[in-house]
């Protein structure tokens, strides 16, 4: 049997590995996407005071610490049975919207976008942020840096620090913002809306105007029919900070709509001995292996999944673009993995518009940002939508609020099974009779990158290139072919 190892660890040491096995006919027999990391947060947080959890769990991920801080803060609200005052809640959502703008911007321009903007067939060395600058113009690089910088500034104003912010407590936030800061944030938010609109125009002009790209997006190699999950508000509109978790089936029909505290009725995690990461699935359907379709419990939680699981967007510009996407791609739900990039910039626009709404509200600068808890803590579940998927924090404490148990289901983990299946599908379409196409590196990478996977944030490759090396060995271990991109 021939074995192909795609080993990003040639560069991203120890942070992810893909093994592809071919059968005697030289076709793909099986794929394994291994995650070689574990740190044990759920266990070493036991014994810690619950109120420290936002600051402890933000260290799960330096790319999305805001998501862990928010899920944790909401779990603490539930744990202490306390409702933050309106300004406390709005401040959290304002910080979180700024975070979404910076995170989705980074992904579109530096990680996922270059494939389309520069072109999937252009040399690997050009498919990065510098290639985007070369094609679209130098000022775009400055705009991306400026967008990241101004939104990190907002995160620092509200959260105390730009990376690993600290200001969340049970019942709200540790400090208010001033009226002057509110006006500054409003100005930043308006710039974000302009920037998001520019980004959407760019996507239309470069990607959608090119029929070859549209054909690739809608091709079977990048199609996967699963259930879709996302947080929705009371009108079933996409919400990142609060609401109910809604799941739709592969036909787009609502399958579940649950409160955070009910998550264990709906989600379970399967264990495999060849990876440190677990595979979540819909509990009521059960684990049936890596298969798609209505009978399988495998679900997906990405920007596209969130749009599929909702009835629309809560802000007008994002809603218009939402309708345009589904009209263009043939209605809901969309199963094309690469359309995730389009969905992501629709979310970018929503986050920017939502930021304006929140910053326009004078109440966000109210000094009343925290409610002191009065109840004894017992158990709490908090859920937010992290950029990479539904994020669940669940704590059980003693009556002093000291952690007895913690269970976390983080964003990317939700998508572990779909990522593995997408990799296999791309490999199957490109490997036949033992012949491995040179294009396989980028094609597998594109399937992988659409998810923006964040395995302990370790697989982030900022110039937009996942360094990959495929080593094909015969059964005696001799190297028969070596393909690499972005390495030499």
């Amino acid at each position, binding site marked *: 049997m021939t074995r192909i190892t795609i080993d990003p660890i040639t560069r991203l040491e120890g942070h992810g590995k893909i093994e592809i096995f071919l059968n005697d006919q030289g076709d793909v027999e099986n794929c394994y996407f291994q995650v070689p990391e574990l740190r044990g947060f759920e266990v070493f*947080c036991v014994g810690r005071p619950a109120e420290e959890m936002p600051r402890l769990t933000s260290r799960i991920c330096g790319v999305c610490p805001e998501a862990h801080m928010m899920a944790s803060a909401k779990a603490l609200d539930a744990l202490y049975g306390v409702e933050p005052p309106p300004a406390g809640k709005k401040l959290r959502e304002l910080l979180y919207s700024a975070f979404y703008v910076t995170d989705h911007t980074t992904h579109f321009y530096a990680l996922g976008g270059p494939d389309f903007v520069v072109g999937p067939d252009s040399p690997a060395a050009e498919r990065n942020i510098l290639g985007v600058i070369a094609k679209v113009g130098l000022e775009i690089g400055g705009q991306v840096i400026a967008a990241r910088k101004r939104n990190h500034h907002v995160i620092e104003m509200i959260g105390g620090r730009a990376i690993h912010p600290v200001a969340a407590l049970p019942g709200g936030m540790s*400090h208010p913002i001033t009226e002057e800061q509110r006006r500054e944030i409003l100005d930043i938010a308006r710039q974000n809306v302009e920037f998001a609109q520019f980004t959407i125009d760019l996507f239309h002009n470069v990607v959608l105007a090119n029929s070859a790209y549209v054909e690739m997006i809608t091709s079977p190699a990048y199609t996967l029919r699963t259930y879709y999950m996302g947080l929705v508000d009371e009108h079933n509109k996409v919400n990142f900070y609060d609401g109910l978790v809604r799941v739709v089936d592969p036909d787009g029909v609502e399958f579940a709509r649950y409160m955070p505290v009910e998550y264990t009725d709906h989600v379970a995690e399967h264990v495999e001995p060849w990876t440190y990461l677990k595979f979540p699935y819909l509990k009521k359907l059960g684990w049936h292996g890596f298969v798609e379709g209505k009978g399988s419990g495998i679900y997906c939680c990405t920007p596209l999944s969130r749009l599929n699981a909702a009835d629309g967007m809560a802000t007008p510009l994002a809603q218009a673009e939402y309708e345009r996407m589904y009209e263009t791609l043939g209605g809901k739900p969309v199963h094309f993995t690469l359309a995730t990039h389009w969905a992501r910039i629709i979310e970018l626009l929503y986050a920017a518009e939502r930021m304006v709404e929140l910053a326009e509200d004078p109440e966000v600068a109210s000094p009343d940002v925290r409610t002191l808890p009065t109840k004894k803590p017992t158990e709490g579940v908090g859920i937010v939508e992290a950029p990479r998927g539904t994020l669940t924090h669940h704590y059980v404490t003693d009556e002093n609020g000291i952690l007895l148990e913690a269970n976390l*289901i983080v964003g990317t983990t939700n998508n572990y099974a779909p990522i593995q299946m997408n990799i296999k599908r791309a490999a199957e379409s490109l490997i036949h009779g033992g012949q491995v196409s040179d294009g396989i590196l980028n094609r597998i990478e594109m399937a992988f990158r659409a998810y923006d996977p964040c395995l302990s944030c*370790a697989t982030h*490759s900022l110039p937009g290139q996942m360094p990959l090396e495929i080593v094909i060995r015969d059964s005696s271990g001799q190297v028969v072919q070596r393909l690499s991109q972005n*390495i030499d």
Partner: protein
Amino acid sequence: MSSKPKLALYWASSCGGCEIAVLGLHEKILDVAAHFDIVFWPCVMDAKVADVEALDNGEIDVCLFNGAIRNDDNAHMAHLLRQKSKVLVAFGSCAFGGGIPGLANLTSRDQIFDWVYYQSPSTDNPQSVWPKPHVKVDEGTLTLPTFWNTVKTLAQVVPVDYFVPGCPPEVSTIEAAVNAIVSGTLPPPGSVIGPDTTVCDECPREKNMKKIKRFYRPQEVIPDPNACLLDQGLFCAGIATRAGCGARCPQVGMGCRGCYGPIDRDLDHGAKILTAIASAVDANTPEEVEAILDTLPDPAGTFYRYHLPHSLLRRKELSAANGSNGQAKPERAEMVAASGGRP
């Protein structure tokens, strides 16, 4: 061939926050690129381990290494980069002191696996499997790096020349380190790059050195926005933690948790915090001190939040972490019991 000094950056067991912090230099990142020939930075640019292996020993002028060492792969890279680098810098709290993931030294591998793969409420594992370094599947054998019981700091694995504190280091801290390297004004080897003063020294809150009768948890009170948090009975490690962060956490009403580590003269950060805090309580007898300190939960996880692997304690005795009795030395057992760690 570039005459610029060669720079390498690497991440071991980390969250990626140190990488984002370097990118947080924003447009100044271009200055770094102008001064250095960046030869290896897996998060951001193209280069492979084989390229590092091909370098002469000591050919990399400076390596900024972030993340703790908690599996075989991390250790391998630490040894390789030590060999190839003239100056090796432990960058950030995890490489320096073990960081928050270093709190895993209050537990054990078995304890972690038991919860993650068997006990947690969402886990479904009827076959009772857990990940193994070598696993036979139908098509062959798959391998995973071995997960260690103990999280180690970089300096516990290889000799380290300099330490840059912070979780993550603030932009000003990174700039100071880069400037010291560029201008050739590095302090003596073994130094921590940063001011040898405390967070209190740069905190704008008004400090009156009040003696406190009890500690409050952060969710119990809304503190005065201008007065020292410790004076108000809120635990703050700023009194015994190195400056350089700008006292950002206290400024938004959250006590310092010590991510910049101890100042030069203090070997054990947790012990120093304990001593400093004890001196702030309003008590006349050791019993009274103890009673007041009892109002502060989880001393081990609080005082050693970022520096447990680097401390004199290093870890909870494995036998104690795994739940058997009688093996732990008394002082460690006490610290563990006080931490509220599960049996």
